[in-house]
């Protein structure tokens, strides 16, 4: 009997998620997927900033505590990766940028004053936290948000878990962060549609994924117009103002975690800088710039 595609969808990490597996038995596939969903749930419970009982909330509540807070290996390695992102992007990708999100109210579409921004920026800067001997020391007023890191990590982690449970052909999608468990039977790639930032439900391009992961970052979900200017929800922690870069970027890499970090960094850069950076990165990508022009490299996309 040929394996057929089994499709499972669920909601987690504030997004629509799906797992697709080729298997001859739906029961066996479901058994695997249950364990995969448990893993997503575990990470959400641990790192959600919206849950008061999450470990992340505990870290943020420890801000100002002189003794610091003991953290486990997994958290330590996530922070190390975040620090690496911070360094490699010269401070653009900063998991402590949360204080800025609070003063930029995208629902009310108000531009904060420069003094408000300066006050918030005093609580931003990953270099100000210290992580030593398995303890994190978060200065008073600062907070961490693993956006751009944990969901991507979860996708990779789930794909790996699926392989260790014997799944060979499958795809994980956690709210637009994709990680391939294995190509479709016969080595056929998974085809992922990249939605267009300018037309709801429209597709910008399709990307063939054989392995690795794909992540996207864009301002199409949240932005506001104020006095004729467009304000993106992607804030540059160096200035405290919304970034003035690409509209959206999708990146394919050997890991979803890597693709996600790179996509976040590219979105935070100035448009021109981002284009050069992507070109030099050696990764496969597609972007839409502020003039709604599409650029791509390394993708065997079939529009």
């Amino acid at each position, binding site marked *: 009997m040929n394996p057929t595609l089994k499709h499972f969808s669920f909601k987690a990490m504030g997004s629509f998620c799906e797992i697709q597996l080729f298997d001859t038995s739906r029961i066996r596939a479901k058994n695997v997927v249950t364990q995969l969903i448990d893993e997503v749930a575990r990470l959400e419970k641990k790192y959600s900033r919206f849950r008061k009982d999450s470990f992340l909330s505990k870290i943020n509540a420890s801000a100002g505590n002189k003794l610091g807070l003991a953290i486990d290996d997994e958290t*330590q*390695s996530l922070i190390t*990766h975040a620090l690496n992102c911070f360094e490699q992007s010269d401070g653009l990708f900063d998991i402590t940028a949360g204080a800025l999100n609070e003063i930029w109210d995208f629902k009310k579409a108000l531009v904060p004053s420069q003094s408000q921004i300066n006050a918030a920026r005093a609580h931003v800067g990953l270099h100000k936290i210290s992580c030593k001997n398995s303890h994190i020391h978060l200065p008073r007023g600062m907070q961490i948000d693993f956006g751009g890191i944990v969901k991507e990590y979860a996708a990779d982690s789930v794909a790996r878990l699926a392989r260790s449970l014997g799944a060979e052909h499958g795809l994980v999608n956690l709210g637009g962060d994709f990680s391939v468990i294995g190509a479709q039977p016969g080595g056929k790639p998974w085809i992922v549609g990249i939605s267009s930032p300018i037309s709801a439900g429209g597709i910008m391009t399709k990307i063939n994924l054989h392995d690795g992961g794909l992540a996207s970052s864009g301002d199409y979900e949240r932005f506001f117009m104020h006095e004729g200017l467009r304000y993106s929800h992607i804030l540059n922690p160096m200035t405290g103002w919304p970034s003035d870069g690409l509209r959206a970027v999708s990146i394919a890499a050997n890991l979803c975690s890597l693709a996600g970090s790179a996509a976040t960094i590219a979105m935070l850069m100035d448009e021109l800088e981002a284009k050069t950076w992507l070109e030099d990165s050696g990764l496969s990508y597609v972007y839409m710039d502020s003039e709604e022009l599409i650029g791509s490299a390394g993708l065997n996309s079939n529009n």
Partner: protein
Amino acid sequence: MRALRSTLLLSICSLLLISCADVRAWERGYLAREEMAWDPDALESTLNDHIFFSKEASSGGNSAAGGGCGCN
């Protein structure tokens, strides 16, 4: 002689093991740098091995297998 040398090897290893710190995966950034590799430039070391092999009597001690040459 052979026995002596392998005893020496073992004792050096155990000395190192005792004095070694537990370096976690994320603390290996410096060790992972290209210039810290055992062999940062493979072509350079292949070339050197080849030249020294043909100009000196000694060879071996690395893990690479290479082709002989008509140079003895």
